[in-house]
């Protein structure tokens, strides 16, 4: 991964002044929000569906051991193989091992966030010609950047930037005129078609894993997952253990939630169900099928109060509706999962001490929770991470001192009121109405005037006076 979690503030500042990024974000934001809203208007039972989604995931998580075993049994019975990877390194090693055993030269990849999570691309690129087949992923692979959004990885790129990338990589030229979107898409399709045909290995993620049938479910709008998983002789699917659902019945509920929440579609253009390796009578399909299930911190979450985060189906609605995400974009978050879900997952997977800004850079406005298709209490989890930060003294000493001192004072109302009563007239020396600058309030006044206290004293002072008058 090219960026680290630390130094969120510097990245956020840079993002705020990056005009290309800002124009790309502005364009994307409205699209996602409006499309989702319209899709939900057409489905009055959406709230009930969310509740069902929550229950399906909670049930599966509560019986994960059973469903994992069932899934593994069904995959194995149908000619596939299930591998368990405890951490990122073992996931990479498992996949590299499969590629080496297959004497592979070329790898084609469909989009996988689990793959991003374990840093799969860097490992693959060192040994094999590796090409991303999702258009967005392909663009950022050319740009050598990590994704900035979990379903629209190149959402931060403008058309001008993509024109330049394609001109450079496909035609070895630069400074050409701005190209139209269909032209760019056609060109990528042409380039990628060759890669599909030449690949020995296809790697995909999984949106859902069906225990009852051993099925891998994939959704795309480009059809690239179908080609990636059916043309090469080996298919490797990588997924977190939380992707399991009991049966096809649950998958259909989850698909209805996912498409609407992610892109405002009733259903994605392609929904693929892959069950088992190629059988002798099959016309196509991979000879080998591997499913690499990653833990990477998930079973630890299963046992604590962050379990509900494992309901996440990676739709991206939380980030699409997050005003902080739409101000700074995904890269500022420093790791593969941005926005509200990243503010929980990054500390969970990578440690809170290197990512303590993420749960703090949130206004707890709650819109993410209100759109989450599986009702994850994101603001609650984010706030719980702040509790941990404070408890483990990851919160800095000055901030801790300030909040504790204030807390001490606020628990002594008489003293508190004396002090605030003294501060009011002092503050009013800085201007009339509002002040452009106030000592110690630089963070506020950098972008805003400071409204000064109005009236003839604190409410309590005035109230006491009035009561006194009434009594006499």
């Amino acid at each position, binding site marked *: 991964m090219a960026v680290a979690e630390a130094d969120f*503030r510097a990245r*956020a500042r840079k993002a*705020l002044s990056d005009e290309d990024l800002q124009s790309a974000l502005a364009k994307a934001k409205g699209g996602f929000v409006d499309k989702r809203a319209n899709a939900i208007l057409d489905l009055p039972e959406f709230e009930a569906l969310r509740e069902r989604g929550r229950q399906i995931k909670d049930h599966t998580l509560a019986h994960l051991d059973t469903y994992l075993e069932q899934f593994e049994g069904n995959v194995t019975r149908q000619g596939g193989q299930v591998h368990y990877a405890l951490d990122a390194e073992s996931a990479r090693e498992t996949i590299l091992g499969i590629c080496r055993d297959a004497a592979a030269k070329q790898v084609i990849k469909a989009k996988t966030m689990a793959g991003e999570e374990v840093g799969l691309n860097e490992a693959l690129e060192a040994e094999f010609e590796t090409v991303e087949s999702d258009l967005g992923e392909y663009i950022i692979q050319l740009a050598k950047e990590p994704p900035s959004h979990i379903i629209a990885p190149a959402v931060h790129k403008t058309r001008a930037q993509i024109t330049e990338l394609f001109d450079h990589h496909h035609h070895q030229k630069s400074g050409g005129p701005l190209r139209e979107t269909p032209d760019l898409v056609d060109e990528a399709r042409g380039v990628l078609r060759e890669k599909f045909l030449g690949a020995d290995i296809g790697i995909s993620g999984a949106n859902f894993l069906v225990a009852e049938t051993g099925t891998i479910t994939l959704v795309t709008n480009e059809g690239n997952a179908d080609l990636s998983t059916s043309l090469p002789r080996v298919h490797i699917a990588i997924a977190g253990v939380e992707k399991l659902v009991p049966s096809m019945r649950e998958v259909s509920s989850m698909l209805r939630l996912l498409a609407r929440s992610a892109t405002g579609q009733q259903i994605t253009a392609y929904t693929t169900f892959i069950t088992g390796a190629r059988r002798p009578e099959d016309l196509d399909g991979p000879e080998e099928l591997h499913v690499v299930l990653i833990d990477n911190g998930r079973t630890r979450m299963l046992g604590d109060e962050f379990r509900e985060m494992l309901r996440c189906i990676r739709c991206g609605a939380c980030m699409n509706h997050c*005003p*902080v995400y739409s*101000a*700074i974009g995904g890269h500022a978050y420093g790791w593969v999962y941005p926005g509200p879900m990243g503010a929980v997952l990054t500390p969970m997977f990578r440690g809170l001490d290197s990512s303590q800004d993420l749960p*703090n*850079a*949130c*206004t*707890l*406005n*709650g*819109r993410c929770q*209100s759109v989450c298709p599986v009702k994850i209490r994101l603001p609650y989890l984010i*706030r719980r991470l*702040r*509790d*941990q*930060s*404070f*408890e483990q003294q990851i*919160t800095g000493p000055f*901030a*801790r001192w300030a*909040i*504790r001192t*204030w*807390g*001490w*004072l*606020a*628990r002594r*109302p*008489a003293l*508190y*009121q004396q002090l*605030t009563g003294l*501060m*009011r007239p002092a503050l009013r020396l800085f201007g*009339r*109405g*509002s002040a452009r600058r106030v000592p110690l309030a630089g*963070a*506020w006044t*950098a*972008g*805003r*005037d400071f*409204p*000064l*206290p*109005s*009236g003839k004293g*604190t*409410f*309590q002072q*005035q*109230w006491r006076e009035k009561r006194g008058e009434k009594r006499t």
Partner: protein
Amino acid sequence: MADEQAPRPQVGLFVTCLVDFFRPGIGFASVELLEQAGCQVTVPEAQSCCGQPAYNSGDLADTAGLARQVIENFAAFDYVVAPSGSCAGQIKKYPDLFETGSAWRRRAEDLAGRTYEILSFLDEVMQIEPPRSDFSGRVTYHDSCSGLRQLGIKDQPRRLLSGSPALELNELSESETCCGFGGTFCVKYPDISTRMVNDKTDDILATGAETVLGGDLGCLMNIAGRLKRRGAPVKVRHAVEVLAGHTSEPAIGDEEEAG
């Protein structure tokens, strides 16, 4: 409006630290509206803050300390009313601070059940008629996030404001987007916060409103501060100021008349 025979509901006003310090007028407007609605209003002296800054910074010990203080000092009232959705919302979160089954937990639950944000209290509990006012002009309304999402406050202020026939309400195009205040967020991440409130003020200016109303002073100070910095002549007020007819007082951040 209240039946002469029926005992008047005893209301304890939770002033909130921001209103107490920055804008006492919101407190007086609240008292007036509650009394007009037939309530007997008391303002306990022993109060400061609901504890949100500590709670949202992860300092649970101090939050619980403050919660016990509020629980004690507001034990005697039928209702506890605050001119803020986020402070009322915080009081409603107190039960989680105490162990299940403990006495404090029970008392916190009892308090939470009696606590209301003022606009929803007037509209839903006291069911008052929208107060008649001659306030006139184009306004827009900012729904603060805690009120909106935690307490479901959306229609109540609009119903109450409908008693001002000359008030023309133009809704924001993104009325459910956070203004970027977020308590300590606004000073911990000032760049991001300023960007968010700038977007909010763009939206406000696009409505053509002369006044922005809302129900939470923190958000309103954030919005007023940004509007002032941009030199935009839009006034910012708490909705109770309009409902109580207290609009001769300068708007938030505006200069007071000399003398």
